[in-house]
């Protein structure tokens, strides 16, 4: 960061922008081919392509800090999504792998040792330079660094911690850092990672232990959970003052998250939500990310080449929200449909309400907050507004519309001074009102 701009990205190769998926076919057996010849742009193409199956890009909820007292960057409060790709995912962080070389053989992962994908490896300096130069141009909020396992978990984690240390200590970087923790890494490496990173995450990968043991034979579910427990204990220890009243340094202030692949094994949505409930209660996770299993180039024969179940993923996120902000239990949501899977045609709150009509209609002028939160079409903000508006007088249909309620959904489930659902609440055709019209299946 001197006058000559020594930390600026110097390399530009106006080569093809796309990482060529077909290229993978031509590199048989060249696992350790000379990667030093690759340009920074080529490495970036390979190592961002390799990182795209990680769903998280959150940069919110960390300590408030900025560069007025030195260094570069700021963080805290809501995160910022700097761009969106056509897959509908936001780009908030520079999400890359340090390397996609890996000694593990996880069937669902493009970077597994048995894949013929092109390999590359960034030097720590390259990762730091890319992060800072993108950051200075206001393209990112920070770095999300993950990695294949090279040589050993400790070696890999040590290199990742070194990158975070260079950013924080050498360059005074105040932006956001998310590090993917390697489950088997030594506890002192994780402890150091938590000092530099805003968020740590360990992927649970699959909703059931048996699937993980089967599809990722080098990983162990108990080690993954123990790593999450370790992060929780570290965070709790960092909040306690010592006997002298001194606070220890903050540990991963934006908490931890995890990711689960949906659709690669036979787990039902109910199983998935139960696993999530266990994870939220056990490790104080900020988020569980659900990632619809997406076909990967050069795939393993252990997995089907299916279209990613995007609607299922969406419904799981909705159900997850119901558990965290609306007071629902995993079993209540999962029990709405006998198959144990969520109704793909309607949202899970509506599905629950349809299956529990005895609890409706709800009198909006009197109902408790807990019950209002269960009304389809009412979000948490709408409920807060209803509670505030009730103090100034009766809330009517038009008021609810203005306060953001989706009345087309709420109608059958509420009574208001100027609205009664009558027989609508219990009518047989209620589900059909909400579900999209059935589609004629294609014959070909």
């Amino acid at each position, binding site marked *: 960061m001197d006058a000559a701009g020594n930390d600026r990205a110097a390399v530009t190769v106006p080569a093809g922008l796309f990482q060529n998926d077909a290229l993978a076919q031509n590199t048989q057996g060249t696992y350790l081919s000379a990667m030093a010849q690759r340009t920074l*742009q080529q490495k970036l193409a390979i190592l961002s392509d390799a990182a*795209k*199956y990680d769903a998280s890009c959150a940069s919110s909820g960390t300590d408030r800090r900025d560069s007025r007292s030195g260094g570069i960057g700021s963080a805290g409060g809501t995160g910022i999504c700097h*761009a969106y790709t056509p897959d509908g995912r936001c780009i908030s962080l520079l999400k890359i792998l340090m390397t996609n070389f890996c000694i593990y053989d996880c069937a669902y992962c493009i970077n597994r040792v048995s894949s013929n994908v092109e390999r590359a490896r960034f030097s720590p300096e390259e990762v730091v330079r890319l992060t800072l130069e993108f950051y200075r141009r206001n393209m990112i909020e920070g770095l999300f660094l993950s990695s294949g396992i090279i040589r050993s978990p400790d070696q890999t984690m040590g290199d990742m911690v070194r990158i975070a240390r260079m950013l924080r200590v050498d360059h005074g970087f105040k932006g956001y850092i998310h590090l993917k923790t390697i489950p088997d890494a030594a506890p002192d490496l994780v402890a150091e990672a938590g000092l530099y990173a805003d968020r740590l995450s360990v992927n649970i990968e699959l909703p059931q232990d048996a699937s993980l043991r089967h599809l990722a034979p080098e990983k162990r579910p108990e080690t993954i959970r123990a790593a999450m*427990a370790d992060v929780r204990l570290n965070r709790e220890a960092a909040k306690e003052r010592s006997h002298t009243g001194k606070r220890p340094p903050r540990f991963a202030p934006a908490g931890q998250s995890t990711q689960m692949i949906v659709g690669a094994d036979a787990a039902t949505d109910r199983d998935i939500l139960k696993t999530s409930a266990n994870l939220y209660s056990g490790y104080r996770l900020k988020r569980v990310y659900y990632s619809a299993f997406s076909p990967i180039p050069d795939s393993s024969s252990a997995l089907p080449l299916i279209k990613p179940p995007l609607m299922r993923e969406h419904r799981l996120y909705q159900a997850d929200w119901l558990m965290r902000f609306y007071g629902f239990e995993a079993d209540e949501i999962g029990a709405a449909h006998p198959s144990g899977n969520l109704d793909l045609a309607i949202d899970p709150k509506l599905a629950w309400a349809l299956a529990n009509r005895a609890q409706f209609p709800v009198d909006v002028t009197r109902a408790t907050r807990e019950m209002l939160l269960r009304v389809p079409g009412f979000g948490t903000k709408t409920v807060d507004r209803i509670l505030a508006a009730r103090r*100034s007088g009766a809330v009517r249909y038009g008021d609810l519309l203005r*306060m953001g309620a989706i009345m087309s959904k709420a109608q059958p489930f509420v009574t208001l001074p100027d609205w009664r659902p009558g027989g609508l609440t219990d009518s047989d055709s209620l589900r059909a009102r909400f579900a999209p019209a059935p589609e004629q299946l294609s014959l070909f």
Partner: protein
Amino acid sequence: MIRITLPRFGRFDAWRDAARDLARSRVLPESVAWADADTPADLFGSQAAPPPGDYPVTATKDFLQLARQVASHSDAERWSLLYGALMRAQTDRAFLSNPADPMLDRLTRMAKSVRRDIHKMHAFVRFHELPSDGPRRRFGAWFEPEHPVLEAATPFFAKRFADMDWAIATPEGVGTFTGGDITYDPPGPRPDLPDDASHELWQTYFANIFNPARIKTDAMRSEMPRKYWKNLPETRLIPEMLADAPRRVQAMRDAGATEAPAFAPRVTARIRQQPDDTVPDSLEQAAAQAARCTRCELCHAATQTVFGQGDPGSGLMIVGEVPGDQEDLAGKPFVGPAGQLLRRTMSEVGLDPGRAWLTNAVKHFRFTPRGKRRIHQTPDRSHVDQCRWWLDLERKFVAPRLTVAMGATAALALTGNRAALTPRRGGVEPARDGGPVLITWHPSLILRLPDDRAPAALAELRGDLARAAEMVA
């Protein structure tokens, strides 16, 4: 008509001063015409404002915060709307806290639109590096927000990019940050920004982080509306990325599964742990096997196996029920509240907690998740039966002269007798394998008992542990 002309920058503070003075004379909202630097002079009447009167004028903090945001809206009516709201609030304060009020609703929506625009400006400004001959690097950007938010949005950049100089040009004006200070200037022509090598790398990143197998363009457009696209270096790639996506997905499908490189099995063979089915011949081997135990279903929800710990040569074994929340997280027995009570009580009667083998009848935590907490559940008989495999191995290698069974579950696991604990407490029973088992309370019972009954139970636990100390001495 009274005409109030607001300056190009610092508009909100100017509005606030003028509105306060007008309200002091109770000038009606419909008799004020608000103008800005670009409004033609002759469009409205130009009557001068009266001197401020003596009426008191008040505004809540929340209203001022709302007004400050509305002030950055592009709607030319915003000033008179705000003045109308200020006047109304002098007699009717309540409407400002009623989300159902139409006037508040309109202002809230305007403020929301401004906040979103500011947020989008924070997201979508892209700096280009400019040549610099000083010690600080220089950057410039062109941005077209929907509302005149330049002044509201730039302090964010000043905090974030304090160590570089930059300028953001917009149709509303130019914000320049030099050496730590922001200045605002009237708009000029759109600047010609030089090419920046990092923008090309950014495009590479954008193209490759995209997953062609999942197309959700609606989600993209709702968060990154087209109106912002023209100034983003990456968006020009989108049509090509979308057009190419089906071919890439098809290519993946056609390629199908491929053959693994020959070295792959050698790499994994080196690190893959083989299942160990042998009967362990040491406590360490038993612990290593137990860590991977799947004999019952508890292992799926619990974090890890909590095997016994302590001194295997002390002749004393203390058995509890099942690990709790803290034990499950730490992977060590008796570290939670009940464990601390046990360790304290042991020390009081002269038993060093480190000089006994501490373990549980069941080695995985059993719980029900309830929001952010895990509620302990007593293990079933089937769990006790499955887990006795490990307890028996521990007994084999520790070979205790005395075992203390704390609580009914431990008593059941050790003696096979599931009778009620109260009459058995304090007695010594034979274990299944013959050794003596002293029956006592589980310390967690003492923590759960009401205050009037807990001291007696604690005294009994203390007495039993003292007796155990004598028996192994």
